[in-house]
């Protein structure tokens, strides 16, 4: 993914996927079909995500909550510190609403409930980009 897009013009939005599940990462990567959005990286925990973020400066991030090393809540806080206008979509199960709310308080912009359909994912991303 990374090498395929590197030659393209640096226009549009750069997106990073953060999830400890390989299946979910792949699902998000395959399902995302928005004009102007390209996936520039994937991370499987918060620490990896912060490193990758510092290198690639994405505009858009999908963020899991429960992850080893550094969880999504702390990761959101770090990413917003690094780039205050980054758009973060929390992608998590509905079982614990208060945890997702915590991540939003730290600066995430929206929430998508697992499991999700391709359509739901793309709608959520489009809504996130459009803003309010």
């Amino acid at each position, binding site marked *: 993914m990374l090498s395929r897009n590197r030659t393209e013009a640096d226009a549009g939005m750069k997106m990073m996927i953060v999830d400890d599940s390989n299946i979910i990462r792949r699902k998000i990567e395959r399902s995302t079909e928005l004009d102007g959005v390209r996936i520039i990286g994937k991370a499987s925990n918060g620490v990896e995500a912060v490193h990758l973020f510092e290198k690639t400066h994405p505009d858009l991030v999908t963020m899991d909550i429960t992850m080893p090393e550094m969880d999504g809540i702390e990761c959101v806080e770090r990413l917003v510190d690094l780039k205050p206008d980054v758009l973060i*979509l929390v992608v998590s199960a*509905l079982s614990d*609403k*208060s945890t*997702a*709310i*915590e991540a*939003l*308080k730290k*600066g*995430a*912009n*929206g*929430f*998508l*409930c697992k499991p999700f359909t391709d359509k739901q994912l793309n709608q*959520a991303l489009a*809504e*996130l980009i459009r*803003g*309010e």
Partner: protein
Amino acid sequence: MGGREAGQYKGIIGAIGLFMVFVAGVFGLNFYMAERLTTDGGGVTLAGEQSMLAERLMKNLMMLEGRLVAGDPVEDAQLALRRAAGSFDSILSAMQGGGNATGPAGNSVFLKPISTFTGQGLLQDASRSWEIFKEALDPVLAFDGVVYAERSSEFYTPAGAEFTGLVESAVKVGSAQIEPIITAMRRLVRHLEAEAANRVAQLRLIQGGAVAVALALFVFIAVYFGRKISREERAASQARQETDNILKTVSEGLFLLDKNMNIGSTHSQAMERIFRKKSFADSKFERMLRDIVPEKTLKTALDFVGLLWTDRVNARLVKNLNPLSEVEVHFDDGSGGFETQYLQFDFNRVKQDGKLLHILVTVTDVTQRVLLARELEESQTQSKEQLDLLLSILHVEPSQLLAFLEDTDTSMKMVNTILKEPARDEAAFRSKLDGIFRQIHSMKGEAAALGLGTVEHNAHEFEELLNDMRGRDRLNGNDFLPLAVRLDHLFNHLDQVRDLVSRLAELRMAIQNTPVEAARPPHVAAVPDFRPAGDNPGQTANLGTAGEVAEAGRSVSMSLGTSQSMVSGGLVGALENLVERIAGETGKKVQLQCKGLGDSEIPSVYRKAVKEMAVQFVRNAVIHGIEEPAARQSSGKPDAGRLCIAFNPDPNGGHEMVIEDDGAGLDATEIRSKAVARGLIGQEEADAMDNGRAFSLIFRAGFSTVDEANKDAGRGVGLDLVRHRVRELGGRLRLSSAKGRRTEFRVTLPAADSQADVA
């Protein structure tokens, strides 16, 4: 709202501004007229002075003549005359053409020309006479010689004589001309005074007009804007009335929240019905919720609403997180109890010009909807349960089913007896609990083996309750009360099964009595289904086997007596079913081999116990012993685990049951630590234990290596049940295991004839 108000007042402000401009204009005009009036006053004064000046001029001239006659000095009289003449001349010409004039006292004044036609005419009259007079006067004024002679023979010098002549002639001319001059000047005064009076009248007219116009303007403004404002007021009040009507009629609770979570002053009337109170003003959202939802929900809800005030958060993308969508709330019902309702809160941002002003909260009472949905779900579950039950009954071999029902009846009676046993101390309570646990667990195992899912499920729920009790620090008699309720539930369910069985029997009989059915060879339906061990009865059971049900339904004991061959044949099938199901659920592969479990090979007194134990051992081996295919591969074993059950006579006339699997074996260390963790033994005791003793821990009630119980494992009952059965039968139980390779259980039972009819 602010923008509209400014627009509304813009008109008034404009009108008042115009009014002020008008008033200022009138003032300006007034000022100009007053200025003019002052100037005119000056003209009147000067014109009056001019006539006096003319008189004085004449008087000075005549005084000069008197001096000449008397021979008195003439210089001062000539000077006075000169001054008066100069002043008169300059004022007259200034009045005509404007400019500076020299007053009689030698002072200089600026005069504007008199502009009226009449005034100019009068001035011209005066000027004409003055020109004539001046012509005669000028030589007098210009004389500069010696008037009187030094010698007394002559009175005047020649120049003096001439001067006297000039003066006499000037007096003559002056006497003729002074009258018209003074008349003109006096008329001028009167004319100017009339002019001034005119102006004053004009000014009064203008002032009066201005006042009238100002008043009219004021009335116009007052009426126009008064009507406009009252129209707007009326519209506003109508809008208010409409809003009130909406708020009174709408069935949802509506109110606004500000940033400090205060409830706004306006709310819909439905709020009073929904929240059962009258006043919400000056109230906090938190206080509204505190009494009706749990603390955790309250906190999450406040956090959630707080999020909506955060600019970063996209409101549409967090709707899912609303903890108050379909929230269960409890209201005090006034008689010490509470009433449960379901409310749905929706939150919407209210923005103006991009600025967030309020959160609009919509509260809907969804109790009916939720209850209906639950009812529907419950009835669906119930129908599904009944259908499942029916299907599962159809798939069980009739004799096995009847044997199971017989056994469960005994078990239920046993549980009832145990429940009624008197107990006082903790140990007695615990022993009662373990006794009930064994009965229910056995029933669950058999139900599972027969594929009676609903019975298994019910028994599992009973176990949940028992397990909950087991986890308590202390037990008392009251703790056992809920068990009676649960037992009743299980009784009812088993009655349902019996009911279904007898209905099927009736159906079978009815079918047999129809002509179509009668035409069939009778043995097709009536022949019992002899099934070789290993065949899967789950696939073949059908109404055809209901013949047994019909017969057996009438007499259970007869049925058991005549179709014993089915029980063991069925046992192998049941075990295979059980293995298949549990392996499927746990993702394992298991090959089951049975030996000696045929009908004739198990003495009847051992039949029930062997069946019970086999179920528990198989369940135990598949869940705990055999590993998942991946784990087996990495240990170099084939994917499918091997599980052998053999029941053989031993040389001493007794029997031996051997259960062996090639699974993970027992881990003494893990068993010790789990036993310590479950409080079965102390740490010191565990440390002192050899592996053999540690293995024996797995037969203790309450032991399990699984952390979370499900319906197949985790209660620590199965092997405890086996231990009890072996003890009841006077047998022995041995266990050997090699970690990572195998586990073997060996049950030795004494000769069957030594047994009383235990089973």
